[in-house]
C-alpha cells in the first residue's frame, strides 16, 4: 500500500478493528478509512464494488471475513470477476485480490470451516493460490496484488500464529510455482496450506523409519505447477496427495486427474489422495480432528504406497 496508492482494502471490520484475524491491523490508522474501507454486511456487494473499482483503475484487496462467506459473493466472482476481461475483449482488467481465512479451524462450526477452493476452482479467469508460511504469505500476497489477473488467496484460520524470520526487503513468490519443501527420493507428497505442516510432522516420523519423502507445497491451486510436480513424479514414481478439501470435487480430485493424465507412464502405483470426509465439519473437537487428515494417517499411507 506504501508503494502503490491504487492499492486499497475493503471488507467487514477491516478498518479500525484491524480485521477479524488482525491481518489489516494498523492500516486504517496509516492510510485512512477510505483506503481501508469498512463495508456493510453484504459479500456480493463489496466484492462487486471491488470489481467495479478495479475496472476503473484501483487495485482492491477484498477480504472475506471467513472464506466461507464468499459463497455469497459467488455470483460476482464467477460472472463478473472471472469473465469480464474476456467478454470485454480485453478492454477492462480486474486486478483484484480476494483473500481471507478458510479451512477447518478449532471448533468454529460447520459454516465457518469451509474449503472454498473446491468450489471456485472451475471458474475460468481467476487464479488461486494458498499460502502456508509467513514467508510465502508475504511473497504471494505481493505477487497477487501486482498481478493483472484476479487472484484468490487462501489463508488458513489456524496458521496466523506461525512465527518465522523473513527478509525485511521486498520479494515476491511466483504465483504459478510450487514450493519444494523437502527434496527426497522415495515418494512425492503434494500438499498445501495447513496440511503442509501435518505432512512435515509425518515426514519426521517417516525419516526415522527410513523413508525419504519429497514434500512439495503446491501453493498454486489454479493452475497447477505441473512442471515441478511432473519432475518429482518422474523421479519418485509414487504420489500421495494430502489435502484438507473434501473427498468429492476438491483440489485433490483435480490434481489426481491431472497427474494421471499427464504422468501415467511414470507411476509405479496409483495416485493416492488423503482428504477430509464428505461431511459438514462437526463442532465437537474430537470429531473435528478426525475429519481432517492427521500425521499418523499420512505415515500409514506412505508405508502402504512404498511397499
Amino acid at each position, binding site marked *: 500500500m506504501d508503494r502503490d496508492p491504487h492499492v486499497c482494502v475493503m471488507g467487514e471490520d477491516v478498518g479500525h478493528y484491524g480485521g477479524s484475524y488482525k491481518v489489516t491491523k494498523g492500516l486504517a490508522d496509516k492510510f485512512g*478509512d*477510505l483506503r481501508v474501507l469498512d*463495508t456493510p454486511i453484504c459479500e*456480493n456487494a463489496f466484492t462487486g464494488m471491488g470489481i*467495479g473499482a478495479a475496472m476503473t483503475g*484501483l487495485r482492491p484487496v477484498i477480504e472475506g471475513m471467513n472464506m466461507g462467506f464468499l459463497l455469497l459473493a459467488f455470483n460476482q466472482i464467477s460472472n463478473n470477476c472471472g469473465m469480464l476481461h474476456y467478454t470485454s*475483449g*480485453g478492454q477492462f*482488467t480486474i486486478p483484484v485480490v480476494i483473500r481471507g481465512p478458510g479451512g477447518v479451524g478449532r471448533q468454529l462450526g460447520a459454516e465457518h470451516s469451509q474449503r472454498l477452493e473446491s468450489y471456485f476452482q472451475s471458474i475460468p479467469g481467476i487464479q488461486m493460490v494458498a499460502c502456508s508460511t509467513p514467508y510465502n504469505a508475504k511473497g504471494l500476497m505481493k505477487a497477487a496484488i501486482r498481478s493483472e489477473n484476479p487472484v484468490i488467496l487462501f489463508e488458513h484460520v489456524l496458521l496466523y500464529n506461525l512465527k518465522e524470520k523473513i527478509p525485511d526487503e521486498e520479494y515476491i513468490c511466483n504465483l504459478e510455482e510450487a514450493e519444494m519443501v523437502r527434496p527426497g527420493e522415495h515418494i512425492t507428497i503434494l500438499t498445501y496450506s495447513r496440511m503442509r505442516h501435518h505432512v512435515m510432522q509425518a515426514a519426521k516420523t517417516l525419516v526415522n523409519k527410513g523413508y525419504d519423502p519429497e514434500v512439495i507445497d503446491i501453493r498454486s491451486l489454479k493452475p497447477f505447477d505441473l*512442471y515441478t510436480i511432473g519432475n518429482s513424479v518422474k523421479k519418485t514414481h509414487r504420489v500421495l496427495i494430502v489435502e484438507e478439501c473434501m473427498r468429492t470435487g476438491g483440489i485433490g480430485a483435480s490434481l489426481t486427474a491431472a497427474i494421471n493424465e499427464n504422468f501415467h507412464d511414470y507411476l509405479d502405483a496409483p495416485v493416492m489422495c488423503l482428504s477430509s470426509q464428505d461431511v459438514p465439519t462437526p463442532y465437537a473437537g474430537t470429531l473435528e480432528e478426525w475429519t481432517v487428515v492427521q500425521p499418523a494417517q499420512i505415515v500409514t499411507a506412505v508405508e502402504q504406497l512404498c511397499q
Partner: protein
Amino acid sequence: MAQHLKSSSKSILLNILRHNIGFSSPSHASRHLRHNLPHGPPSTRLSPNPITRYCSTMVDTLSSIGSHEDTNSQVMDFPGGKVSFTPEIQFISESNDERVPCYRVLDDNGQKLTNSRFVPVSEEVAVKMYSDMVTLQMMDSIFYEAQRQGRLSFYATAFGEEAINIASAAALSPQDVIFPQYREPGVLLWRGFTLQEFANQCFGNKSDYGKGRQMPVHYGSNKLNYFTVSATIATQLPNAVGAAYSLKMDGKDACAVTFFGDGGSSEGDFHAALNFAAVMEAPVLFICRNNGWAISTPTSDQFRSDGVVVKGRAYGIRSIRVDGNDALAMYSAVHEAREMAIREHRPILIEALTYRVGHHSTSDDSTRYRSADEIEWWNKARNPLSRFRTWVESNGWWSDEAESDLRSRIKKEMLEAIRVAEKTKKPNLNHMFSDVYDVPPLNLREQEVLVRKSVKSHPQDYPSDVPL
C-alpha cells in the same frame, strides 16, 4: 465534541482533502465524529485525516424532539442517534396516501407545461438528442428485422425508452463511467459509437471490441467509459458503487452511472448497492427504467411498494421520479442529480417511468401476456420521439425535411453497416483462449493445441468463417 483526526502521509491524500473541503459545508466539520470508536488521547490525533467519511448524515441533525414536547418527552441515546419516545402505538403506514408525483416538463402532446422548470438545452444539443433518438429507434428496428430474417442470432430493442437512453447520456459528461444493464445502447450512441461498431458486436466479427465473445447487444467500450454489459441482473450496481468509490478516491469531477429495470430492483444487489453507496457517500446515479415489465412479470408482481423511488429513502438516498418518456425532464433530472452526486458526494436514485414497447428480446413474444392494444397505445400515443419532436419543431429547430433526410441517411448507413459486418470474418480461433488471463497459462495453451488438432482431423465440421 472532540474531532477525531488521523495522520496522513501522502500528497495524493492531501489533494483529496483540498477537494473535499471545497465541497463540504461548515456543518460537516462537527460530523467528523465517529460514534462507536474508543476515544484516544488527543495528542496522537492532531493532523487532519483527509479521507474520514462522515458518519450517519441526517440522523444527527434531525430534531429528536418532534411534536411530543408537551408530553414527558424523554430522549434516549441508542446507537445511531437520539430518538424521542411516543406513548402511541403507531405503525408507519405501508404506503403514503398519495403516490410520489412524477416530474415532467412536456405534456402528452409535446407542449411545454406552463409552470415547468427545466435545465435549458441549446439547439445543437436538442437536435443531436432528437436525431440520436431517431437513430436508436431505427437501429433497433433494422437489427430486429435482421434477427427475424436469420441474419442475427439475437437482439433486444429499447423501443419506448429512447428518451431515457439519449437524454440521460446528454446530461452526463464523457468522463462519467456507465454501468449498463442491457437496454441502454443509446448512451453509447450518444457518446459516438458508430452504427458499424454496433453491427460488429452483434455479428461478433473480428472488428468487435469484445472479440466475438458475447451475445449481441452486450456492448462495451473502455474508450467511451461504457462498461461491457454483463447479462446477470443488477450485478452492475455494486460495480458502479466501486467505480464511484474509485472516482472519489481520485478526486475526479465525474460520477458513476448505472441503469437497471424494475425487475432489477428486486435483486439483492440493488439493495446492497444502494446501502453501500449511501454509507460510502459515493457519487453514483442509480437510474431505474421502470418500464412496467420484467419479461412477463408486471410490476404488480415485482414489488408492493410505490414503485422504486420510495426505496431510496429507506437507504438514506435522495430520490426523484421522472417521466421517462419526456426527454427534457430526463435531461434536467439527470443533470441536477449529477451535480449533487459529485458536489456533495452522495448517491442519487432516479426512477424513470416508461413503457417497454418492444418484446423483452427476440426470444420473447409479449403479446402472449399483454394486449396488443396496450402496446400499440404506448407506441403511438405516448411516444417519446413524437413528444420531443413537437417541442424541437416549435423552436424552429426541426422540420419534415430534416426528418426524412435523417431517416433515409440512417437507413442507408444501417444497411451498409450490416452488410459489412456480415461479411467480415470472425475473430481467430486463438481468441477463444486469449484474455482469459493476461497471458494464457499452460493448461489453456494445451487445450488450444488439442482443439487445433481436432479441427485438422475434422475440417468439414469446422465453421468456414472462423479463421485459424
